[in-house]
């Protein structure tokens, strides 16, 4: 078993173990970054979404060897409870999180979309989030959250 290095949330980390270990397991179990969640283990639900060199990937499908020498960003890179990022604040204001299990993955997909210059309109955001399943919200408040963050303003309480 060799050692490989990757940059996780701006920090160089070394992993000693099999190169085919799933990235999600390395993040959660070796690096104790448990913000990344496993929902299906087959790349369908998107709860494990992290950014690899800035692009969203399902970390349950990526062998850690594939991340060697590359940049990995997880939900822990965004903000802290005391100082939420603009996107996280959007989710708090617009009720974009209910049970919260899909939220880290949603945030990472939304973050990648906005950071890469993706459009801040309903259709573009829905497309960007279409690989992330949510069973609680019906998505509308999640889309509102992302749009609010992009536009830097709070959604009104009522849409009437």
């Amino acid at each position, binding site marked *: 078993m060799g050692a490989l290095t990757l940059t996780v949330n701006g920090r160089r980390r070394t992993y000693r173990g099999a190169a085919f270990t799933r990235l999600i397991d390395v993040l959660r179990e070796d690096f104790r970054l448990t913000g990344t969640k496993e929902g*299906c*283990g*087959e790349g369908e639900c998107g709860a494990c979404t992290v950014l690899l060199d800035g692009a969203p990937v399902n970390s349950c499908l990526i062998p850690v060897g594939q991340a060697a020498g590359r940049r990995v960003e997880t939900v822990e890179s965004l903000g802290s*409870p005391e100082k939420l990022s603009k996107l996280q604040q959007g989710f708090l204001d617009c009720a974009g999180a209910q049970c919260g299990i899909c*939220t880290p993955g949603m945030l990472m997909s939304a973050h990648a979309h906005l950071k890469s210059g993706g459009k801040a309109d309903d259709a573009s955001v829905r497309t960007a989030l279409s690989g992330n*399943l949510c069973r609680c919200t019906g998505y509308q408040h999640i*889309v509102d959250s992302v749009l609010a963050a992009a536009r830097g303003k709070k959604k009104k309480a009522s849409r009437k």
Partner: protein
Amino acid sequence: MRSVGKNVSRREGPEKLTGRAVYLDDLDIPGCWHGVTVRSSVPHGRIKAVKFDPAFPWSDYVVVTAADIPGRNVVTLIEPDQPLLAEGLVRHREEPIALIAHADRAKAYEALKHVTVEYEKLPSVLTIADALAVKEKIYKDDNVFKSFLIRKGDVDQALASADVVIEGEYRVPHQEQAYIENNAVAAWEEDGVLVVRGSLQCPFYVVKALKVLLGRDESKVRVSQTVTGGGFGGKEEYPSMIAGHAALLALKARRPVKIVYDRHEDMAATTKRHPAVVRHRTGLTRDGRLVAQDVDVVMDGGAYATLSAVVLSRGTLHAAGAYECPNVRVRSRVVATHTPPNGAFRGFGAPQTLFAAELHWEKIADVLGIDSLALKRKNLFKIGSITATGQVLRESVGAKSCLDVVVRRSKYAQRRKEYDRWNADPKKPSWKGIGVSVCHHGAGFTGSGEVYLASRAGVALTRAGALVVLAASTEIGQGTNTMFAQVASDTLGVPLDWLEVETPDTHKVPDSGPTVASRTCMVVGGLVRRAALDLKAAFESEHGRVPRTRAELKKAAAALCGAKPARRFEVQYEKPSEVTWNDATYQGDAYGVYSYAAFAVELEIDRATAETKVLRVTTAQDIGKAIHPLFAEGQIIGGCLQGLGWALLEEPVYNDGVMVNSQLTNYVIPTSLDAPPFDVTVVEKPYSRGPFGAKGVGELPMDVPAPAVAAAVKHATGRLIATIPLTPERITAALAADAEAARV
């Protein structure tokens, strides 16, 4: 009022948004092993042998079978018929037989390949029809777990004298809850107390089950909820099973053990919504007034009784729909089959029977030549209406208000004409349709259920000046923590951030009953309000007033608590005096109050592929009072999308008694691109017994989508398809059958 009715921030929001919220699998439990489950591979069979590969290093593992159970081998719920681990006989696929734990997760899973179970296969009953025909006896003589009969007036005579009698049969499938966090429980022993932590809805259910299973005093079992990634009923009863498994492994291994299901195991082995067949025979006057409803309901309970009797009860009590009819008969049964037990899922029997009751109006409309909306309007519940159980609806009946809002905001009449013109043009690539539904949903437990539960909740004041809400109701995403703090702080008249909400831990909070049945806000929230009123009175009498500053709160707390570390103000549920219910005759006030919803859906069906796209949803829901309007809207949109999924996409496929599409790859739930835009109106017809007028909201949104979708598909295609989901395959088959019939 300071916070009720306002969109304050989610209490645990910042932790959930930063990855700091600790779900079960995120817990760092030193020395914790991983548990896995050996499951049956036949739907019905006698276990001849469980063979452990002699070449495998079993000494590195802990193995548990039924022989290791210190108490009774039963998952205690309603009937003691379900074993925790099968002994001798298996009655469904995926039934737990043995348990294995190892320090390494991969090695634990590896061990499953080295266990072989040999069976003598027995004949199995896998469908409702075979169960009713008693192809094989599974449960008593008739395979019926439970039946109900509701009678109002004289149905036979009314049918005989009705202008028209219209019959219909409606079928709905299983549905998977599909919470994104799979079931997960951990257990260990600490100073003689068995500690269980888990992703679950009802911590006291688990205590009651473990007490019997382990033969332990309740004080030696402590269950607390971890942050839970969705429930929808799927974590109501099944966590008792997993907790039992984890407990047995932990006690034998003398170390913590956690069991975290993977998606396939969770979908294949755990409970689903009950499939149902519902038949209606309805008598009406020629101008569309109901004179008789004769309804027959059959549900598939699966191999063990679990919650089937209660699911059937709710289904039965909603089977006539939100309409007044002088003569009603509802006969219902839930049968046993050799399939994994079905259980709680948002709506709890009502979506099944309401689908039939609502869609049947489309059939009636065709026969009478009157628009279904006009028929619904003519018969809809209003103040003073008498339900099938003889309940007089005295207050808070928002059915008509909801329907009016939806008809107006969806431009129902205009869209109907517009789509009629569109559909008449053969050059168009699609058909379009609009459908409307209106439903009621009883809040709280059925009948006398709340009386038996005798739920308790409270507010504690600590000597240091902390105010803590004490309730066993779990936060599973719906906003319980935030709502309790809002109710308590406004009742006391203190700032919202003075209130803390205790973790549902059975050694810290009273038994508030389960987190189910749209009861958390209305029933338990009502208890929290009463407890807060008691504390307020104590402040006033012992301190002179409710404290206005933190410093004053500390002073008052010291005075009220005296030498004690805290004072608890706990109250117990008291039945409202006007509510009467007879369990023997199923007559009376089935629920204290009902919530109401109306729903319009517009959709477009591709003429070539029969793929359906939902264009728009307009809904109005009367929930009494929205304690938190944005969270209430979140419940409505989320619940409605689950309903749209059930209506259009979701179909557990069973083969030889087991779900074969037990993956998110082939069991399809709606994505952000499947979800339509929702126009939501919250209607507030206050309920005098609810906190600040609130009724239930959790389940109601699940009731309305399916019948509206089927009505819209009928508008689009001209074909009433009485079975969901309305997949392209099902629509194509129905239209092909029509074309075939037209040729003959």
